[in-house]
């Protein structure tokens, strides 16, 4: 049976905006009340809500993680990450000469690249190990350090190529992640379909690479032209502009939001193409996946998420995560039937600590869907 003729099963996500918003508001209120210490409980509650509304073949996913595990992971990250970070960022500038302090901080940020990659890997491993379907646990094999150093190398190549290595790097990272992902004792595969993994990504990438700077400059020109025209017609005088700092803040905010819209819009074709391509190359026990992400819908959902996050000062950031999760699962289907009767439970232990570095880098916007 070919992929095209195999029976397709759609994933479903039944999360409702207002329902999730209610939980996000409750979490935001308690986070304020507890000076953000509630964030471990908030994150856990939101994940439970999002996972439980996602189903395949009528059976929902289940999130089994606890706030205690996240808190424990955070406590582990205190001596392993925060103490060195405090020394480099707070103490070194006070006790070393400026050149030494500068190189220490610069070195810290360079090391931060593989550290963030390791944090993503650890976060994904934790989330998968706390995700069950029909009682069977997912997990992630491999080591975070291997992913971190490989990712570091790809980042260097991305930098040296002025970004043009990004499509390959993105597929490499996806391949490494998915080839280590397991559902019970069944591994996922990142298949070779006879085409380069980055096939179909180059034109959308080129579009983003060229269109963003051009449209950014054009937007700045338009904003300043409008500003000059307003001042020129006398509607607002230069004195009024300088006397009213809120006017300048408003203009700066308008420019920043325009930039955000442009970034999302210019890169939406590439992001949609990359998401679809990655999904098409994932396989489990012969079954394949298909994602139907589209440029405009992805742009809309990304923009909505960012606007909610910005205008809620980050408090409702989990809503952005919810919109993304719902977007993906509404458009994802599995083609073919894995032999579920032959997929057994994973025998690796769950581990007791949570995401540690993920919290340190604040990677997950309150949800943690990496």
């Amino acid at each position: 049976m070919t992929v095209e003729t195999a029976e397709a099963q759609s994933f479903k996500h039944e999360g409702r905006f207002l329902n999730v918003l209610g939980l996000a508001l409750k979490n935001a209120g308690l986070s304020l009340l507890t000076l953000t210490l509630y964030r471990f409980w908030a994150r856990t509650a939101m994940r439970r809500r999002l996972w439980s509304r996602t189903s395949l073949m009528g059976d929902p996913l289940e999130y089994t993680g606890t706030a205690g595990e996240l808190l424990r992971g955070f406590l582990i990250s205190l001596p392993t990450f925060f103490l060195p970070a405090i020394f480099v960022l707070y103490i070194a500038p006070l006790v070393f000469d400026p050149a030494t302090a500068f190189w220490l901080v610069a070195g810290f940020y360079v090391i931060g690249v593989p550290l963030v990659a390791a944090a993503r890997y650890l976060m994904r491993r934790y989330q998968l190990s706390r995700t069950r379907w029909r009682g069977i646990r997912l997990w992630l094999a491999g080591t975070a350090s291997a992913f971190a150093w490989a990712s570091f190398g790809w980042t260097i190549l991305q930098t040296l190529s002025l970004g043009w290595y990004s499509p390959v790097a993105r597929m490499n990272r996806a391949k490494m992640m998915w080839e280590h992902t397991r559902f019970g004792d069944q591994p996922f595969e990142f298949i070779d379909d006879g085409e380069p993994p980055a096939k179909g990504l180059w034109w959308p990438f080129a579009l983003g690479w060229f269109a963003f700077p051009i449209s950014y400059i054009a937007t700045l020109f338009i904003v300043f032209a409008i500003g000059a025209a307003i001042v020129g017609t006398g509607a607002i005088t230069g004195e009024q502009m300088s006397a009213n700092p809120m006017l300048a803040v408003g203009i700066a905010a308008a420019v920043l939001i325009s930039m955000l819209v442009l970034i999302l819009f210019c890169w939406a074709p590439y992001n949609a193409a990359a998401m679809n391509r990655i999904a098409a190359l994932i396989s489990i026990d012969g079954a394949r996946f298909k994602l139907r992400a589209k440029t405009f819908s992805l742009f809309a959902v990304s923009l909505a998420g960012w606007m909610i996050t910005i205008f809620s000062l980050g408090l409702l950031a989990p809503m952005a995560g919810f919109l993304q999760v719902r977007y993906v699962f509404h458009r994802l289907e599995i083609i073919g039937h894995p032999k579920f009767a032959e997929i057994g439970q994973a025998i690796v232990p769950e581990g007791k600590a949570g995401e540690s570095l993920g919290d340190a880098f604040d990677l997950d916007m309150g949800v943690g869907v990496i």
Partner: protein
Amino acid sequence: MQTRYADGRAAITHVTTLDVGTDTIAFRIGETEHVWPYAELRRADDGSGRVILKRHPDTGERLYLDETDSARLIVAAPGLNAKRAFGIEGPGTIAAITGAAWSLAAVFLLAVPLGAGPIADHVPPRYRAQIADISWSQINAFTEYCDDSDEAARILNDVAYRIMQESDVPMRDDVWITIVDAPFPNAFALPDHSIVVTDDLIALAEHPDELVGVIAHEIAHIEHNHIMKNIIRSVGAGIFFDVVFGGAGAGQMVAIASVNLASLRYSRGDETDADLRGLDYLDAAGIDTAGLARLFDRFAEQERPPTESEEEADGERSGGFPTMLSSHPATAERAAAARARSREGLNPSMTDAEWQIVRAACGGVVLPQSEPAPTAPPNAPPTNQPPVATPLPAPGTKPD
């Protein structure tokens, strides 16, 4: 959909029939009879529809109940509809988290200020100099050294040395005053015992005692090590809230704001302390504190919101000095405290000629004085003053 059972060993489900009892549920899969006591059960769903059960501790087994069995179970075991069954924290847990958060904050609010003093007193000179480097780089970024202020700075340093000598200030040989061109009236003490005086402060002062009062206040900050204490407090606040109350967004803003309010209170305490000690210096050196009171009065006038007629005049009043507002006690109270210790019959702290030189620093215009300074104050500084500890800095640099 019927009630189904997943054994946690394979990703398939088995249709079964559920027997809902008083204390247990029972069902049969093949030849095996399963009996699960309610006390061992937890919910694996989120309460939005059909019930999914799991055991505690988790064995991986799941029981997907149909709608009829779901309704029967909730009637038989209402405890399975409670928050605890879902693993959701109750009000007690939330109260405990809130208590822990505010207790941590309270510990910080007490511990950091208490620890700041001893830590600040033991900062080695080398590190103090490094911190001063940073302070100077910031000051150099928004002020400009005045080439024509050498003589004026010498006069101010002479007066400062005299009042420190009278009060036996231990670090008097290290204190050095620099005059800078800046668009605001202010004076700062730095970690290396430097004092920076802006030309706008000199222009605002109408009598030498007013300016010397401010310098006495800054010397008191140096003697009591307030600068280092404040730095330790600020760094401590940053570390504490970055680490303990990580996260992002408005929640962290609330956390940080609560600390800033607390450190502001301690900062105001330092200011009051420096005010009182500065008045002691002036008293001991025979300088009238009424001068400082008059300067405070002028600050109070500037801090007062403009009246409608002043607003209509557009620019009659500048609208206050933000740099003097935030961390200082109410200016009117400070003026009253200074005035209460005023003594009559004292001579000005500088001669008229010296005052004219100081007023002319940074290209300043010598304005008519409200009170003429006598030509020879009785407590004039001796001409054979010991040399100051640090040489005059080159423009845009800091003293060694």
